[in-house]
């Protein structure tokens, strides 16, 4: 496990075709919208869920890559997970000091669970013991242009209850967005990674999960979702060498023809523009091209 020596930020562009990327429980599961701009929103927790699912799927049996926040469907896989606990057991019993015990608990959780060291977890029955602040911080994703959710009525040629048998069929509703390109910003603190043990290997897995998470998340509701571009800002050192907002401003995503509704990723221009701004040795990495 190699410790992280650089701060990172990233911009992920993902799109959706004829689907609902993230339903709003307050609006009858319509796609989330910013009511003022009609831009689509996808919450941070929605994306974290997909990262967890991806890691669980690909690393299921590997020690140290367990997922604490699980979806119910994979209950049985969990039992297979084994790990080496000798050293930890010893430490927890032997150290008399309470603070150190708490630390060993926190370390145990970080070592075992990918999501704890990546996103953090609140592990406190008492005040101030073992809250883990993860290395990775993800903001809300927002669509580049306003999105227009459509309500689609669908029918089912069967009924649920015997008494409805005369009706012959039932109606349902789906909400879809014909097309939306979303942009999300993420932050990785090397300083917090040091505390949780989030390593270079974990980082590589995170990049992979960001680009591949939608490949394993297909469902009737989602339509076609895909990661289109992952751009990584690698700072020269742990604390970083440039303000995050200035780096994000270097990535411009615009519709090629604003008068026509976009329906494909190729309807957008993505410009990575390091010219005008001094970027102090921040390396811009286009992940797909590495």
């Amino acid at each position, binding site marked *: 496990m190699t410790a992280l020596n650089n701060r990172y930020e990233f911009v992920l562009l993902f799109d959706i075709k004829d689907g609902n990327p993230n339903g709003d429980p*307050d609006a009858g599961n319509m796609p989330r919208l910013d009511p*003022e701009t009609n831009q689509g929103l996808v919450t941070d927790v929605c994306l974290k869920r997909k990262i967890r699912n991806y890691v669980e799927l690909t690393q299921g049996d590997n020690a140290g890559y367990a997922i*604490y926040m699980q*979806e119910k469907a994979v209950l049985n896989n969990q039992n297979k997970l084994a790990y080496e606990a000798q050293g930890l057991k010893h430490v927890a019993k032997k150290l008399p000091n309470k603070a150190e015990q708490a630390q060993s608990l926190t370390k145990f959780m970080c070592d075992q669970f990918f999501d704890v060291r990546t996103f953090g977890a609140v592990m406190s029955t008492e005040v101030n013991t073992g809250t883990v602040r993860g290395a990775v911080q993800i903001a809300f994703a927002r669509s580049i242009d306003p999105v227009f959710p459509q309500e689609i009525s669908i029918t089912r040629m069967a009924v649920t209850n015997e008494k409805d048998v005369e009706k012959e069929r039932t109606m349902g509703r789906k909400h879809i967005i014909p097309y939306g390109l979303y942009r999300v910003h993420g932050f990785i603190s090397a300083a917090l990674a040091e505390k949780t043990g989030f390593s270079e290997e974990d980082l590589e897995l995170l990049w992979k999960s960001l680009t591949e998470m939608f490949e394993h998340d297909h469902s009737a509701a989602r339509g076609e979702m895909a990661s289109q571009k992952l751009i990584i800002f690698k700072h020269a050192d742990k604390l970083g060498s440039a303000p995050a907002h200035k780096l994000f401003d270097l990535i411009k995503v615009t519709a090629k023809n604003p008068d026509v509704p976009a329906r494909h990723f190729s309807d957008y221009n993505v410009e990575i523009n390091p010219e005008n701004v001094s970027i102090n040795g921040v390396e811009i990495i286009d992940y797909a091209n590495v």
Partner: protein
Amino acid sequence: MSKGIILKVWGDNACFTRPEMKVERVSYDVITPSAARGIVEAIHWKPAIRWIIDRIHVLNPICFENIRRNEVADMISQDKVKQAMNRGNLSELIYHVDDGKNRQQRAAVILKNVCYVIEAHFELTEHAEASDNEGKHIDMFRRRARNGQCFYQPYLGTREFTANFELIEDRTAIPRCHEQLNGEKDLGWMLWDIDFKNGMTPHFFRASMTNGIITIPSQKEIIL
């Protein structure tokens, strides 16, 4: 106050949760001194220093929006972790987020399009050593803030609402507050900060905003 710093912070959203409304979170109208301290500490902090927030300038009109999310009900219990460590297997250390019992839909009333200027200074604490002179820490903070460096990206109340930041070098360069904020506004009782030394005792203050500027009382004025 020559040893002070002035930091501009802004972001799309923010949630400075009112402690009395934290199940379905409702944000305060403006950033709390405690959240402002957290932002400053994300850029530079050492046990040798204690940041003190002096003034907060609210640059944008106060505007709310509503968001509902699926959240989990519980925290990880320390005992369960201990048991798993002793047992040497993780099988019961899982949290099923889809389970109805563990899942809660919670709404949050959050702030939108916020921008603040934080004026702060620090004091040396009992952990300060001979090498901890004030100039060193001020210079470190300013250098980091100027270059966009931080220990972790600061955030506006909760981590999904990241904060952009920029050092303001000179008082005359502080942007003016929005004209909608002109006049006096009573913001009611707000969290001042939490006293971590005394069993997490929260302290409150009566916040009022004059032409967009909130003057934060000192510790002496708060703890009688």
